[in-house]
């Protein structure tokens, strides 16, 4: 899940309008940018879509870390294409947010100042080539769990962005699993790297779904508005149930002895991640938070002269056109 712990905004709108709005959502209608919407709906969506966009952008960094070290030309090309897709997802999502009246520059500044968040997962380091497999398999796998239902979300531009994004994400997940197969069925060193990657990414992947439903205070309003389609625990269970057999196929061990099939509930039992760690990462104390934001800040600062230069040229051209007319 690329948007975690999105706080639903309270709404102080006219009760009649609110009821009519809710009726549209309940009828499965899409809300479009020019339609009336409660202020809380707009603000919550800006926060959620913005956080999702930032996750795509920051998410380029842990994978970009391996593009220059990809072991074959084909792997390098696949990874480049993947990271390019992520930048593209960021672009669609910023555009979707723009339809709600917030500019990409505003959102970028909120990211850099720490006012807006991105997914906790991207604050973990990518240490070996197997991590490129684990990120595709687990991180994109978890993201898909959340994003497939969001194709039916109530806000039209977000739902449509999600349709395109999901197609590409499922391709990424397959590519990630393909790397894991090569590693898990490769030399002893490769297999050890694959296990190590799973050990490090397992709990952070479970954290992607956000805290347990009983501690997730913002879910109810977002679910009523169909901005959030499933509870955190539902999605996390689904992810575990999908992933455990895949790990077995690879001959890898999930780093949690509590993972056992529970016939009664029809799913695997598993241990909760360390939520203290999760909240520390969200607060900025994860292993890579400082580096990730510093990298984005540097790109933004170093790029200022380019953006200014392009604007200056556009003004000159517009001026020349006026003079010619």
């Amino acid at each position, binding site marked *: 899940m690329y948007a975690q712990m999105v706080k639903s905004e309270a709404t102080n709108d006219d009760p009649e309008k609110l009821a009519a709005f809710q009726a549209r959502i309940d009828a499965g209608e899409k809300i479009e940018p020019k339609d009336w919407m409660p202020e809380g709906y707009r603000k919550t969506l800006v926060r959620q879509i913005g956080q999702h966009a930032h996750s795509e952008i920051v998410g380029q960094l842990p994978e970009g870390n391996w593009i220059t070290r990809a072991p074959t030309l084909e792997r390098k090309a696949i990874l480049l294409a993947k990271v390019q897709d992520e930048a593209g997802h960021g672009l669609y999502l910023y555009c979707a947010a723009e339809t709600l009246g917030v500019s990409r520059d505003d959102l970028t500044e909120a990211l850099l100042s720490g006012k807006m968040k991105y997914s906790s997962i991207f604050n973990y380091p990518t240490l070996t080539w197997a991590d490129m497999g684990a990120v595709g398999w687990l991180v994109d796998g978890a993201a898909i769990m959340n994003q497939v239902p969001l194709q039916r979300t109530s806000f039209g531009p977000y739902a449509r962005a999600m349709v395109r994004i999901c197609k590409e994400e499922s391709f990424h997940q397959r590519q990630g699993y393909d790397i894991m197969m090569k590693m898990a069925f490769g030399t002893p060193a490769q297999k050890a790297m694959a296990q190590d990657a799973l050990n490090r990414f397992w709990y952070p992947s479970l954290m992607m779904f956000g805290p347990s439903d009983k501690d997730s205070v913002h879910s109810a309003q977002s679910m009523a508005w169909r901005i959030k389609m499933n509870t955190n625990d539902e999605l996390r269970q689904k992810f575990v149930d999908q992933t455990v057999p895949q790990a077995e196929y690879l001959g890898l061990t999930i780093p949690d002895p509590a993972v056992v099939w529970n016939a009664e509930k029809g799913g695997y039992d598993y241990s909760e991640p360390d939520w203290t760690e999760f909240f520390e990462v969200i607060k900025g104390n994860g292993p890579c938070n400082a580096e990730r934001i510093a990298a984005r800040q540097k790109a933004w600062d170093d790029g200022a002269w380019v953006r200014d230069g392009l604007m200056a*040229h556009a003004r000159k051209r517009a001026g020349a056109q006026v003079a010619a007319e």
Partner: protein
Amino acid sequence: MDTMTDLDTALFAGLCRLGDSTLVLGHRVSEWCGHAPVLEEDIALANVALDLIGQTQMWLGLAAEIEGKGRDADALAFRRDVWEFRNLLLVERPNGDFGHTLMRQFLFDAWHQPMLKALESSGDPRIAGIAAKAGREVAYHLERSADLVIRLGDGSLESHNRMQAALDTLWPYTGEMMTADATDQALAEAGIMAAPDSIRPEWDALVRDVLAEATLGIPPGTHMHKGGKQGQHSEHLGHMLATMQWLQRAYPDATW
């Protein structure tokens, strides 16, 4: 095949010159991933890098086939040392600021596009085929890099100064692209590859026009660096290869 004919030896070298140049430039451009000045540029840079890596697979794949020693494109890319690389010096120049990266791209694209156009008429249909496919991609690279050079050259005072500084630094690395040696001559005489000097009129005209529109001045110096095509590189290439080849070298028995 134990020994290659003289022409095959020249062809192998010629293909490595093309494939190593696209590999090294593709690698350099890929170093930008996630760090570009605007999101659209992150996407465009990744796209250019991706095209160049794809072209590398084709050129080095054909080189390996001509060589006939059981190597493939990956073996050539990841298991040769600096002295065996045949790329142009221009493409191994470090990225520098965005202006350097962009100017390096433009100066290369302005050569790459007419070179591929000429290679479409190669007497070797494999080369003509690769050139045709790559040429469609490179036409876009040139359109983009020329447009951005103009916009930033004729942009703000700072962007102008940065683009001029990039041009001044990179200009002495452009001569090598259009200087023929014995290998180039042999391939040109056999009708397999265009002679590098035959590209010059088109390169000169294009570069002159774009730089004029960009309000940038061509540096007065005439000295040109050379050696990349013969395997004599700058110190920068070794560091790039140390990064790029590390996994293949550290785990030589692994498949990926």
